[in-house]
């Protein structure tokens, strides 16, 4: 009886999870998604806990309380820190899967060989491998995003890097095959521990060659891994709820990763093994290029007289925490009847959808956040394109310069607008170390300074100006 009740609860939970994801398709229904998700999860936890085989409760209660104690503060981080929070939670997900897999292996190994069938052992090995590599990989990613001092920000590469990784993977596979063939051998737990060690190391090695610009893809891939680890756990425990929920998460991460890769015109393998950012500092031929600086007053005047303005935000906006100032600028321009839209590149920022969340936080209606593909046809009619802390995603070299590392990447056509203002902290090239032709175009004027200050000054000009009329 209890078995059927539990299975029924799992079935309902699965349905609720599917609905939760379905409701995420528009902001209008998305709030419901959270309620469905919470309901499904509560049902699953209660049903599981109520099973007669669960006889020890104290540790679970303690763990749940601690989970709340850590989880609540983690949900209150500033939105600019959401990428590292997300990476951190992938790490927790990976850790949970890895630990459950290990516990099951050592338990079954102790109870005799009949339990460790080929299928179960393979599933456990996959779970542990995916779980632990997601754990350390996500911790590294979170560290990079948080700009922790002892984790190098720039991609770290060394000769034979891919060979080293491949060799490690082969060793892990070799040990795995040995464990599958002889799961009850006395040495099996040692070999299993070796696999755990390799998985942990592998996670670190996988992330160190990856640069900040590739973080959105990497976070999505880690998201997928965390889901797949849960699927493997479902195979181990013969639990269909784990399989369905894990598969939903796995496919979500996969789709996001594909979108990110397409938005950079790169392949998975290229992101994971390409070590972007280190590549060619090639063209030294740009000595005669000069920036045309513009003053705040001049910039404000042009903005004021425009009829349509498109703001293109990038990671620099997040770093400078400039989204609230951007909102003030948006208000000032709207007040003057200027049409203002935001052009969002899929990989702007450090995780999928990063810019949208920051701008939504600043109370900008999401109807004014426009995707790259939708806004590009309109760009030639736009009076002013204002680039706020974006760089590679507006670099025309992606269209024209075959030698550029970003060649082929779809970009926002800022250069086609009648006038371009680019806010830039310094005269150094962007994250990928690539010169941006946009800055030297005839139509482009540079506003040098911290994004937050520059926009603040523009707002001051505009509001002061309206007072004098």
């Amino acid at each position, binding site marked *: 009886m209890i078995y059927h009740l539990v299975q029924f609860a799992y079935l309902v939970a699965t349905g609720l999870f*599917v609905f939760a*994801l379905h409701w*995420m398709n*528009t*902001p209008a229904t*998305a709030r419901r*998604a*959270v309620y469905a998700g919470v309901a499904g*999860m509560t049902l699953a*936890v209660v049903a*599981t806990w109520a099973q007669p085989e669960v*006889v020890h409760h104290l*540790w679970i209660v303690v*763990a749940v309380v*601690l*989970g709340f104690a850590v*989880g*609540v503060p*983690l*949900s209150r981080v500033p939105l600019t820190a959401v990428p590292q929070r997300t990476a951190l*939670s992938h790490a*927790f*997900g990976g850790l*949970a899967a890895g*630990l*459950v897999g290990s*516990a099951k292996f*050592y*338990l079954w190994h102790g109870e005799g060989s009949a339990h460790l*069938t*080929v*299928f*179960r052992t*393979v599933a456990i090995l996959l779970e542990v491998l995916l779980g632990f590599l997601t754990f350390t990989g996500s911790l590294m990613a979170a560290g990079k995003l948080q700009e922790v001092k002892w984790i190098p920000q720039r991609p770290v590469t060394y000769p034979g890097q891919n060979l080293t990784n491949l060799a490690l993977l082969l060793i892990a596979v070799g040990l795995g095959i040995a464990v599958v063939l002889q799961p009850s051998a006395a040495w099996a737990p040692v070999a299993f521990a070796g696999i755990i060690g390799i998985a942990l190391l592998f996670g670190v090695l996988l992330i160190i060659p990856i640069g900040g610009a590739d973080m959105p893809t990497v976070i999505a891939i880690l*998201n997928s891994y965390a*889901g797949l680890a*849960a*699927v493997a*756990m*479902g195979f181990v425990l013969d*639990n269909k*709820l*784990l399989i369905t*929920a*894990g*598969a*939903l998460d796995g*496919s*979500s991460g*996969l789709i*996001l990763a594909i979108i990110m890769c397409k938005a950079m015109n790169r392949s998975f393998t290229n992101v994971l093994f390409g070590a972007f950012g280190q590549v060619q500092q090639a063209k030294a031929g740009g000595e005669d290029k000069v920036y045309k600086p513009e003053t705040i007053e001049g910039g404000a005047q042009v903005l004021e007289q425009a009829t349509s303005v498109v703001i293109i935000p990038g990671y620099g906006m997040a770093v400078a925490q400039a989204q609230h100032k951007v909102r003030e600028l948006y208000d000032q321009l709207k007040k003057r009847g200027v049409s203002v839209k935001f052009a*969002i590149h899929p990989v702007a920022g450090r*995780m*999928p*959808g*990063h810019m*949208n969340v920051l701008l939504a*936080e600043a*109370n900008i209606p*999401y109807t004014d956040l426009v995707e790259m593909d939708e806004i590009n046809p309109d760009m030639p009619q736009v009076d002013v394109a204002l680039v706020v802390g974006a760089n590679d995603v507006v670099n025309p070299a992606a269209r024209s310069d075959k030698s550029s590392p970003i060649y082929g990447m779809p970009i926002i056509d800022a250069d086609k607008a009648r006038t371009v203002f680019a806010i830039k902290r310094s005269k150094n090239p962007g994250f990928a170390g690539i010169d941006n032709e946009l800055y030297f175009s005839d139509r482009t004027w540079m506003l040098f300074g911290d994004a937050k200050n520059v926009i603040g000054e523009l707002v001051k000009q505009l509001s002061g100006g309206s007072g004098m009329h």
Partner: protein
Amino acid sequence: MMLLTITAPAAAAAETTDIWPLLFVFLLASFIGLGVIRRVSRLLHTPLMSITNAISAIAVVGAILVAGPDYPDHIRLLGAIAVFASMTNIVSGFLITQRMLKMFKTETKPGEVTKP
């Protein structure tokens, strides 16, 4: 994988887990996932990631089933840590998703065309 297919029939006699229904469930759930996620608005990709994060913390089910039964203490300890890790994800995942979604507002002004 070859290894699996070759040796599976021999092992099947000894084990109770029937692999095939699980693989069917996995396949179908993945397709449903792909179909549903594809339609998620790009605006919401960050909240999507945090809600799927919370949902994948369904690993809590497995963790409870390791931490709760009458197993040796060291095994249960691993399970309890896993319960903690999953619970953290569930709580922070759902809460932050909710927090972010609250920020997405429309302000439909007269004369402004909202694109679908």
